[in-house]
């Protein structure tokens, strides 16, 4: 029995440990690059959403506002991830439900409560349909809208052809961002 256990366990464990060390090494090498890339991408999206900001340094992540935002958010299909503040406005990084999964958006709002830009960090929508949300033409429609805008699909906002869920997802995200801004701005 003991002999059998030794015979099976030793090779398996050796293989596993070698594999674990190899992977740990690879992870160590790639980790920094992965997180750097993710940060860069996020910063780029934020700057696109708030064009008045010229360098990533002007944006400051605010845990305080994030907690407040999480409390006031009521839509279960939207999930807020980060809030960046700057002298020119606020950027909300949030995830909203689309057709193929969560769409990660950065939404910039100026100090007077107008949308300055919407940019996509990542998404998994159908190529050729929902994936057209990468197209700036669709996203530019949101610029200048504020809390008074109804943001109705088909009226104020031209939906993406054949991708109502995706368009809805973006609109929902923008609405949530405006609402949060409205509720927390006084504080």
């Amino acid at each position, binding site marked *: 029995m003991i002999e059998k256990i030794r015979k099976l366990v030793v090779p398996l464990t050796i293989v*596993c440990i070698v594999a*674990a060390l190899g992977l*740990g090494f690879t992870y160590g090498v790639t980790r920094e690059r992965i997180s750097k890339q993710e940060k860069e991408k996020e910063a780029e999206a934020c700057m696109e959403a708030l064009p008045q900001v010229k360098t990533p340094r002007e944006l400051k992540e605010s845990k305080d506002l994030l907690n407040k935002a999480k409390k006031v958010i009521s839509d279960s299909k939207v999930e807020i991830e980060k809030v960046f503040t700057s002298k020119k406005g606020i950027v909300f990084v949030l995830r909203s439900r689309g057709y193929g999964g969560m769409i990660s958006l950065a939404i910039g709002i100026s100090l007077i409560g107008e949308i300055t830009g919407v940019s996509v960090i990542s998404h998994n929508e159908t190529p050729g349909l929902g994936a057209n949300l990468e197209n700036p033409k669709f996203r530019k429609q949101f610029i200048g809208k504020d809390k008074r805008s109804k943001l109705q699909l088909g009226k104020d906002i031209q939906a993406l052809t054949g991708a109502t869920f995706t368009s809805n997802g973006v609109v929902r995200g923008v609405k949530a961002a405006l609402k949060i801004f409205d509720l927390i701005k006084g504080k």
Partner: protein
Amino acid sequence: MDWMLLGKAAIALGGPSVLFGALLAIASVRFKVETDPRVDEVFEALLGGNCGACGYPGCQPAAEAVVKGKAPVDVCVAGGRPVAEAVAKIMGVPLQVRERGVALVHCKGGFNESLPKAIYEGISSCAAADKIAGGWKACSYGCLGLGTCKAACPVNAIIIDEDGRRWVRREKCTGCGLCVEVCPRGLIEIVPRDQEVLVVCNNRDKASIAREVCSVCCIACRKCEKACPNGAISIHDNRAWIDYEKCDQCGKCIEVCPNNVIVRVVPAPVRRRKKGKVPSATIRKVERLIDREIP
């Protein structure tokens, strides 16, 4: 380099591996099922298509049966001789090639010989055609010619020609019997491979009825019975039956049969192709009809 991370990784993957390795080791001892190592070897040697032609649900059960001695070493029908040799080698027994039979369709009537009673336009399956008013043929025993047997054949040994007649390519047929099972009219029989003189009709109506529906049917005239010097032919159920044990294939019955229902099936001569010369489609078609009848 982050040594802590490496250590943690080694623990996270090494830990479960020790656990599961031990689990498997214990299981392999505690729950050991005595299996003959030859089962795996035989299984490897079989064709592995799980075709079911051998009559076992798959290759694994067939391999088990071979090792237990329940099945012969040439159990794998589709694999043929090379597989049988390999299995025999594993089992350490000399390969005795069991002469497998060959399929025979007991009906000769194509569109030209056998009269239709209706036009059938349903799905292309004999079983379905048979269910609709007893089939489209006037003969209620004859082959419906829709090719269910052809579809069932794992080695493409059955051919249906333009006239709706069936041919069995004897050199391909392995005698597996899958076609026997699917024929709704039970027309296919596995006959000994060296049997050349055969009755190709299954009509069991009286001569007066039979003669009206088909020009190549057995009318139970008893001429063959009388002509046979060995007493191998008998007539019952209004058709002739050959006792293959007694038959010495002299062919006297063939000569006397008025409707050419008794035939001699001989393998066609093997043609040798000249190198580089590809036969045209028509020639190949003729070549495929390997088994010809000599009336």
